[in-house]
């Protein structure tokens, strides 16, 4: 888990790891490790490496005893599994930030170590920065070489090996002089290889030995004896045996590698599938879910994620700490049949990285969206501010002008009629300001994404309230309103919806001459109500028609008529916030069509009887 690991502590305090094996020397090793750890004042771990395929039960138990001893001395105990001891140990050491590894080196000679390099050599080679402390074994204490498990194979395999060799022998004997002895050797080697391909080491070596014996007895003169007349044949036997051993070893190794490669491929596939599925999920709990499911399936274990704030104590399984930016995850808990081996750990690490990536991605996306929203908000605000300051100033200027005049020039307001007229203008301008303010407030409410507060309202009430806001200003005009009696009620925010009509009427008052009529009509069409607003005036100029609903567009040059270009934009915003639409309509004058959806199951104006008081 290198990508998500917490940073390693300083070197001196780094953890010490002692590598425990089945040999009786292990006890001494553990105690030695404890001494070193105590001196250094650092925590220490005792680790055993079990090859789940090859290690025998006796070996496992011996290791277990040593581990228990270590635990009683204060070590943290870890059971690793893997084929290659050195590689497994080094891998784990890296993960835990181990600074020193303590290992034992037996003094007795072992052919295998001499040929292929001992565990200690491997550790030193792979360990990198990690110190390797070698404790010499005590002379006399023989490292018992315990047979590996499974290498023996079943009796059936031996039988098959025997049968193969017997078959070759029979063929060779039947062929007689037509096949030379060299070719027979090849046949035997072929048989050994086939046995190695299908069984384990035991039967394969047995096949090698048996083939030499059969060759000698049945085919090499003097026949039917183990005696050898020609010394050259001895060499043949030795080489044949050696080659047989090598071939079977190589074959076995190939098989193992092939199996490992297949497993790796499988895990890669699982990882990419995990990645894909993570990419499809949006929320963090979903990501956790996908992770636990997929990784659990891959490892054949129960996988759980825990948060750093609430660790699941007393839970079964191994715990792997993780640290993911932007999340509360603290650890992954894997409850498998046996401890994870190095390959599985690597897979888990890669899976955790994917998960971390997915979580981070989610955070970044959300952050980016928020940032974009903030930018847009800012833009709107500054545009609004400049528009507001212009359009508020004009009526304010009028009010200030008149008020100061009345204050400073008493002659101006001397006679009652002119005084009334001036003050009436002040009131008008103030009302205009009030409507602008009301409009702007409605817009800020919408832009802030505030929920529209709805109640059941008949459309005629909204229209009536809007008309009432203008009092006597509409006196000189003909107002035609056609709303059928049985129109269903709508779920509306009454003050907001009233503002829509207020804005439309305000525009009419501003841009049409006195006396111009206003028509408002509505009818139900399917699941919505269509509302038409039309005035009999000159209508919107061509260049404005296209952009009528954009903010800050005006029908006239700014100086001639005060008023914001926000009016229609706000109307549409309010209507759309109710789930409706608003468009320009055709016809003479300024014409608009609004469509508002009728919620299902709503009351109608004609339902009065059912609501009569008992």
């Amino acid at each position, binding site marked *: 888990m290198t990508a998500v690991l917490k940073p390693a502590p300083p070197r001196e305090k780094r953890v010490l790891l002692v590598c425990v094996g089945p040999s009786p020397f292990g006890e001494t090793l553990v105690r030695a490790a404890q001494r070193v750890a105590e001196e250094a004042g650092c925590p220490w771990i005792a680790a055993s490496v079990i090859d789940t395929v090859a290690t025998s039960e006796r070996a496992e138990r011996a290791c277990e005893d040593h581990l228990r001893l270590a635990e009683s001395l204060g070590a943290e105990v870890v059971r690793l599994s893997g084929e290659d001891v050195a590689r497994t140990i080094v891998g784990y050491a890296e993960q835990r930030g181990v600074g020193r590894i303590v290992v034992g080196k037996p003094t007795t000679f072992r052919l295998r170590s001499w040929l292929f390099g001992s565990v200690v050599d491997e550790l030193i080679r792979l360990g990198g920065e990690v110190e390797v402390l070698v404790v010499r074994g005590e002379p006399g204490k023989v490292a018992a070489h315990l047979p590996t498990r499974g290498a023996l194979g079943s009796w059936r395999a031996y039988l098959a090996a025997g049968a193969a060799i017997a078959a070759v022998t029979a063929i060779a004997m039947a062929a007689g002089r037509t096949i030379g002895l060299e070719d027979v050797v090849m046949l035997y080697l072929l048989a050994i290889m086939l046995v190695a391909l299908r069984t384990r080491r035991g039967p394969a070596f047995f096949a090698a030995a048996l083939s030499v014996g059969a060759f000698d007895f049945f085919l090499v003169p003097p026949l039917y004896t183990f005696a050898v007349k020609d010394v050259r044949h001895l060499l043949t036997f030795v080489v044949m045996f050696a080659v047989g051993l090598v071939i079977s070893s190589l074959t076995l190794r190939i098989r193992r590698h092939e199996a490992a490669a297949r497993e790796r491929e499988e895990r890669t596939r699982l990882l990419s599938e995990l990645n894909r599925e993570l990419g499809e999920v949006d929320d963090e709990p979903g990501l956790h879910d996908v992770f636990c499911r997929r990784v659990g399936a891959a490892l054949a274990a129960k996988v759980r994620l825990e948060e750093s704030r609430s660790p699941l104590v007393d839970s079964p399984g191994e715990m792997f700490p993780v640290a993911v930016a932007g999340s509360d995850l603290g650890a992954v808990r894997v409850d498998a049949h046996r401890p994870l081996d190095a390959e599985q750990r690597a897979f888990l690490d890669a899976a955790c990285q994917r998960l971390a990536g997915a979580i981070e991605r989610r955070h970044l996306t959300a952050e980016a969206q928020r940032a974009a929203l903030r930018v847009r908000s800012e833009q709107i605000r500054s545009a609004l501010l400049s528009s507001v300051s212009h359009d508020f100033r004009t009526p304010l200027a009028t009010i200030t002008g008149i008020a100061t005049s009345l204050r400073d020039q008493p002659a101006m307001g001397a006679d009652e009629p002119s005084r009334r007229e001036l003050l009436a203008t002040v009131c008008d301008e103030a009302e205009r300001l009030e409507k602008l303010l009301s409009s702007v407030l409605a817009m800020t409410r919408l832009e802030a994404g505030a929920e529209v507060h709805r109640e059941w309202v*008949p459309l005629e009430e909204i229209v009536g309230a809007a008309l009432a806001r203008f009092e006597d200003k509409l006196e000189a005009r003909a107002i035609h309103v056609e709303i059928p009696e049985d129109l269903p*009620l709508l779920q509306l925010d009454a003050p907001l919806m009233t503002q829509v009509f207020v804005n439309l009427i305000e525009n009419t008052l501003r841009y049409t001459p006195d006396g111009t009529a206003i028509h408002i009509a509505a009818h139900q069409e399917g699941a919505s109500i269509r509302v038409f607003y039309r005035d009999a005036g000159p209508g919107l100029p061509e260049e404005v028609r296209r952009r009528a609903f954009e903010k800050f567009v005006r029908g006239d040059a700014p100086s001639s008529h005060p008023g914001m270009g926000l009016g229609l934009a706000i109307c549409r915003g309010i209507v759309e916030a109710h789930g409706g639409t608003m468009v320009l309509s055709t016809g003479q004058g300024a014409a608009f069509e609004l469509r508002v959806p009728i919620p299902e199951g709503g009351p109608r104006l004609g339902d009065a009887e059912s609501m*009569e008081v008992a």
Partner: protein
Amino acid sequence: MNDDRTLALIVEDEAPMRRFLKATLTNQEFRVIDAGTAKEGLSLFSSHRPDIVLLDLGLPDGDGLDVVARIRELSRLPIVVISARGREADKVNALDAGADDYVTKPFGTAELMARLRVALRHAAQARTGDLAPQVSVGTLTLDLERRVVMVADDEVHLTPTEYKILAMLARHLGKVVTHAQLLREVWGSTRSDQAHYVRVHMAQLRRKIEVDPVRPRLILTEPGVGYRLRET
């Protein structure tokens, strides 16, 4: 000297507005005491026992609703609140808490005085138990004793529900009545899913008594709040 002019308590934090209110009310033959904070206002209320309170809901040191509730614990005197446009919920809450009426900023003198006078009149009627048996508004005449409704000399037949609505509005002549209040008093219900009952019947009622139901001159709509039977 016994001053029997009506004593008004103004609670308003904005100084210019306070000056304007004080001047207007004084000009209209009120005695005025004023406060700039909720705390001050409540203290003046206790010490002076005004006849009417004019209270701004947007005070710096306290929730206007709180003040209304505190005053109501001690007295039934009329309370008119000052609120802002776009804050209908505040108005409804204040009315539910016991306020009698409201004015919306910016408001004119006429509107303010009308609200104050109506509130005072109703308070006086409540004290004396005196209910006008006949209510006349424009062309509408409502005889509460005989349960007869006339519009310009023609009798109008209302359903029991419509009558109850009209009667309630008439009892509160000139004062606002919230949808919730109507629902409670006429239907005895507090269920929000029955809120539309009021609107449906109001529409019917308007068709019967208004010249132009879409532009009512008798029963005015206060969007987001309720209705008001206008006194001429």
